[in-house]
């Protein structure tokens, strides 16, 4: 189940956010050895101070966080502009009210990956969540910075990005920037590849889900 957590929900959903910052430390520092700052076992960077929207995948039985990602509008401070600007052609940047940036995508490494090469169900759930939130907000694209490891996952999810700019080495990792389609078609393809046809966002707050359903039935 996906929880969509905006700044007005940070306090009421602090238990999920705290698990998320710890998971990010385990994944990005301990496993991937990225150049990130960890304090008290939590990875938090300056983009977390710009009131991003978080998507968190939570196991309904255990209440345990399984994965998360972070969304920021490209009209405001974001990683592609402020950290990975060198990926884009000289002086170019992406700034559109219909494009948000996704960053800090991570999955709990303790979750067993499917042996048959299929997509991890948490990955599917988070990707579907991005498309559903994007449709709700009227977006047409999500942009993200990723490496070869993620590129394979996108292909398997049937959500291949269109590459922008030139792949560049950051901290020894060949890094790409890509644009991901936000559309009903993209949502259906993801649902098919990961066997999740129904909406993954059942917000505690009923309205966005209702709004989303109204929107989806309108698009048919």
């Amino acid at each position, binding site marked *: 189940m996906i929880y969509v957590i905006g700044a007005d929900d940070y306090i009421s959903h602090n238990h999920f956010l705290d698990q998320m910052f710890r998971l990010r430390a385990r994944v990005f520092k301990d496993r991937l050895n990225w150049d990130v700052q960890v304090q008290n076992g939590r990875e938090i960077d300056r983009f977390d101070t710009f009131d991003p929207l978080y998507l968190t995948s939570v196991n309904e039985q255990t209440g345990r966080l399984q994965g998360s990602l972070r969304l920021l509008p490209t009209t*405001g401070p974001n990683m592609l502009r402020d950290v990975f600007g060198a990926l884009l052609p000289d002086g170019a940047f992406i700034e559109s009210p219909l494009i948000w940036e996704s960053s800090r995508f991570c999955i709990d490494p303790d979750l067993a990956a499917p042996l048959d090469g299929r997509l991890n169900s948490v990955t599917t759930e988070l990707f579907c969540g991005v498309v559903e939130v994007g449709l709700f907000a009227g977006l047409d694209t999500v942009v993200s910075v990723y490496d070869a490891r993620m590129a394979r996952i996108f292909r398997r999810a049937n959500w291949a990005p269109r590459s922008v700019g030139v792949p560049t080495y950051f901290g020894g990792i060949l890094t790409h920037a890509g644009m991901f389609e936000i559309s009903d078609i993209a949502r259906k393809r993801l649902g098919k590849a990961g066997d999740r046809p129904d909406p993954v966002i059942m917000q505690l707050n009923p309205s966005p889900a209702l709004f989303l359903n109204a929107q989806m039935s309108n698009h048919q």
Partner: protein
Amino acid sequence: MTSATAHSMNLDPNFLNLIEEATSVRHHPQVHELIGRLATIYELSSVAYVGVNLPGPAGGNRYVSTTFLPDWINRYNDQNYWQLDPVLKQGFSSILPIDWGKFDVTRPPLRRFFGEAVEFGVGRHGLSFPVRGRYGEKALLSVSSNMPLGKWIRFMPFWTRDFQILAFHIHQMVLRAEGHRDPKIKLSPRELECLKWSAAGKSAGEIGTILYLSEKTVRFYQDLARRKLDAKNLTHAVAKLYSLDLL
């Protein structure tokens, strides 16, 4: 911006004209005029723009332009509804569009607030669109309507995209009216800090200590800044920082 969007873009000439006009606006009276025209074109009961922490000469100010009746503005200020208004509270924290219909109006203060708003000509249904700006500033564009609920629900998804785009362009328009000019080269605060400390003669290691970053991270930011400035080396970058008046 992308070819994939062409099929879903609104090609209504009114919508396109509004955006084109917004891009040419330079002065405050025109901002207000355009917000009024937006209400007319979409047959809205009200349109309201609020921006906070705007950059520019009047930096840090709140900027407001609405089609509200003067009586409602007075009432709003007198009752200090700035504190109570749930649309503002949520609109300046979340980035998701806000459907006013989801606020719990069984709570007496909110019921009274929305009840009064309707009495003063604000529509029964409303949507608000948060905007995040380049300099970390925030804005909110709110629209309201009295159309029948069924029609409103049908229109919402289509309007969401229109108003996301309009909200962004209205915000850019307000920045221009406020006298803000886009600098050609934009360094992030970290890049700027790391360069400034180099200008003060500090080594990457020392800067790392000052800014609580690793030496590697400092070099990383300096290198990004150097590339953005199209400079050959760090000294050249610092020189350009001064000559381009980026400090």
